[in-house]
């Protein structure tokens, strides 16, 4: 304090008088204790006035504060025996309960038994934009996968995310929502167990891109669909907060268990292979029609060492994939589209065949295959003895016919003199329909009444399936199994096998590989047994 600010003698005397006056109304002990505890002051102004004038109360307050400051430290549970420690204990117990509850909820999930992994990852662009097949536009933005509630601690991000075999699930309606699709995709093809993949896809985004929000749900049951969708909605809202507008809307409810898995045999029989029911794989069955072996009974997978019956083309191969076709082949070989792929991406694909070596005249045909009866389709899809409602998986998508094609040829071309020939559908193929491409030597023989259809089946993929295929192509490295699943479901067997290279080795990968190879082999004619004579028909003269 400056010397000029020091109180003079008269002022000190006044201070003493003020102190003596204030001492008559000193504060009680509980008031001093309350002041020392820094609790809210009652009658703060009056008490402060008194404390300013009363040195005794100030000293008592100062001593109390000094006593509390001098109180040694120690564990908090030794600090006090009063309500403060009780409150601290209650708060600690509450915090522990909350943490335990959160841990249990994160580990178990809302239903109390399962774990759920939530992720948000970009999808391809709009289906309309993808219809043209422009792959460069399909390239999705950088993945934004993240783990959300119920995620397993330390678990890897969900990789098996991909749109395929869509099946709608329950989506809780939300005000302002526009649209959403929830898709269920089975994850374990060899053993259709309870593991499934649910994918939510919103198509309205601020940046024009399409993102998906996926849930990997072990043991998903119909009763849990609503809860899962609520989780998904929360995930979408979290994505919205991060700048991505994911909107969910109403949808139809169905259990994931109703989604048919592309289980064993589904790829070959279910996706259009023309094997007769019960025929063992690996047997190429030749059929003679009218004494002239010009019909192929089926396109079956060869089994190493297995018998292969004679085909009408002298033991040659119709398809080029995996075959030894070339200019020296005795019969025309399909060059494009890749016969290893069942699904067709192009609307008007050009079917090219290699020049045959034999002098016969061949007729190329592309026929629309009518859909078989649902029971037959369902029967052909099953592989584990349990019938699966295929309509839930692929609605309005006719699969291969059970009988011979009856429709008129879409396009016919007669080929002769060994030139490279191609046919092109006169009109775009109808998405979702199966088509049969066959090469027949002329003159055509009368078909055997009960003979199975011959030729190679293709399927014109729908716009949605094309989108899925393009998505799978773009995500083959990041989500190999999901991409394989998508490609396999779309009948793109060669691409599926190629995408499987990115998957980590394991039983599931091996099972996938075996299945894809079986499907591939079923689309390849068996090599003729060594020594079998090639039956070359005489070249007709024209």
């Amino acid at each position, binding site marked *: *304090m400056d010397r000029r*600010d020091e*109180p*003079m*003698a*008269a*002022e*000190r*005397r*006044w*201070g*003493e*008088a*003020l*102190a*003596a*006056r204030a*001492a008559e109304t*000193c*504060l*009680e*002990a*509980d008031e*001093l*204790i309350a002041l020392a*505890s820094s609790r809210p002051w009652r009658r703060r*102004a009056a008490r*402060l*006035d008194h*404390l*300013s*004038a009363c*040195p*005794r*109360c*100030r*000293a*008592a307050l*100062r*001593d*109390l504060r*000094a*006593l*509390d*400051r*001098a*109180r*040694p*430290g*120690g564990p908090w*549970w*030794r*600090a*006090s*025996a*009063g*309500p*403060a420690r009780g409150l601290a204990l209650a708060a600690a117990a509450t915090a522990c309960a909350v943490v335990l509850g959160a841990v249990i909820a994160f580990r178990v999930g809302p239903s109390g038994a399962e774990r759920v992994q939530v992720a948000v990852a970009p999808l391809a662009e709009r289906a309309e934009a993808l219809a043209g097949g422009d792959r460069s536009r399909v390239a999705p933005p950088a993945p934004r996968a993240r783990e959300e509630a119920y995620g397993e601690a330390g678990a890897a991000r969900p990789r098996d995310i991909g749109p395929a075999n869509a099946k709608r699930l329950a989506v809780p309606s939300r005000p302002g929502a526009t649209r959403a699709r929830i898709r269920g995709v089975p994850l374990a093809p060899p053993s259709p167990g309870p593991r499934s993949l649910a994918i939510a896809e919103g198509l309205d985004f601020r940046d024009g891109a399409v993102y998906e929000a996926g849930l990997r749900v072990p043991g998903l049951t119909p009763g849990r669909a609503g809860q899962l969708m609520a989780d998904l909605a929360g995930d979408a809202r979290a994505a919205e907060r991060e700048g991505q507008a994911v909107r969910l809307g109403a949808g139809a409810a169905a259990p994931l268990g109703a989604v048919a898995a592309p289980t064993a045999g589904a790829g070959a029989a279910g996706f259009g292979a023309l094997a007769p029911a019960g025929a063992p794989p690996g047997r190429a069955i030749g059929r003679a029609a009218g004494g002239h072996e010009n019909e192929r009974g089926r396109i079956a997978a060869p089994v190493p060492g297995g018998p292969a019956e004679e085909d009408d083309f002298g033991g040659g191969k119709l398809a080029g994939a995996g075959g030894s076709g070339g200019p020296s082949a005795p019969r025309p070989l399909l060059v494009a589209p890749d016969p290893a792929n069942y699904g067709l991406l192009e609307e008007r694909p050009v079917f090219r065949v290699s020049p045959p070596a034999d002098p016969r005249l061949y007729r190329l045909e592309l026929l629309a295959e009518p859909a078989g009866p649902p029971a037959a389709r369902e029967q052909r899809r099953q592989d584990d003895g349990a019938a699966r409602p295929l309509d839930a998986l692929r609605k309005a998508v006719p699969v291969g016919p059970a009988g011979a094609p009856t429709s008129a040829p879409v396009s016919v071309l007669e080929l002769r003199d060994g030139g490279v020939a191609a046919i092109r559908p006169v009109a775009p193929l109808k998405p979702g329909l199966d088509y049969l491409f066959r090469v027949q030597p002329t003159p055509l023989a009368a078909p055997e009444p009960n003979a199975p259809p011959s030729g190679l089946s293709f399927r014109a993929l729908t716009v949605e399936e094309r989108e899925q295929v393009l998505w799978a192509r773009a995500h083959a490295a990041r989500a190999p199994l999901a991409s394989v699943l998508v490609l396999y479901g779309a009948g793109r067997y060669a691409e599926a096998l190629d995408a499987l290279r990115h998957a980590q080795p394991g039983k599931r990968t091996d099972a996938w590989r075996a299945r894809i190879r079986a499907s591939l082999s079923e689309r390849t004619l068996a090599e003729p047994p060594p020594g079998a004579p090639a039956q070359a028909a005489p070249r007709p003269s024209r």
Partner: protein
Amino acid sequence: METAPAAANTQQTDRAAGELLGRQREWLARFFARRVSRREDAEDLVQDVLVRASASMAAWRGDCPFSQWVLVIARRALCNYYERDPYRRGRLVPLSPREEAATLDPQREGTGAGPSLQAESRAVAERLAAHMERVCTTDERRVIALTYQGESLDEAAQFLGKSPSTVRSLYRRSRQKLLAHVVLHDPDLLGGRAAIDEAWARAAASEEAGERPTSQERSAWEDPRARLEAFRSACLKMARYLPLAAVVLRAALEHGGG
């Protein structure tokens, strides 16, 4: 005949003392419960404090609330408890000498002045409080009270929760206002008009230039209403030369005569 009334008085005194002590038990229990770890220790301390207060109740002079007096005993008991606690032993932060003295002397603030001086101080305080109420704001009154009682400006600032610069400006302004008001309206508080004039003369004759009144202050001293600010500054310089004896004597005479 006198035994029975004496016994009755003793019983009444004991009953009153018991009631007085009983009223302290509640806040003592809260006080110790917040400061010791074991509830049993808190109860023991309460009982110990009450026994000590009962035994030394005669030492209570009545110049402070009884609970405040008991609080001093409780504080001392708590210090002893801390020193006895094996866990806390060696962890105690020693009290400052001032705090130690305050702990050991619960009634140290008693002035010990006689009744006449107490009455005189009370009268001076009443008149001074009236003047402060008239010319000072609430914060200025608090600052004046604190600094006049020897608190430094920093302590006053800490106590009032204000910045030191704010407290300093409050103190300087309120001090000048109060002095000028007392000089004008109640010169007896400063020893009377004669003592004030003598102090002014001594200030005017001061050899230190900083303490000598300026020309404006001299003119303001002649006409305080016209130059109030300068008059306040002049009063501050005059007050430095007021004799303390004159102040005290004048106040005593005023009280005795009044």
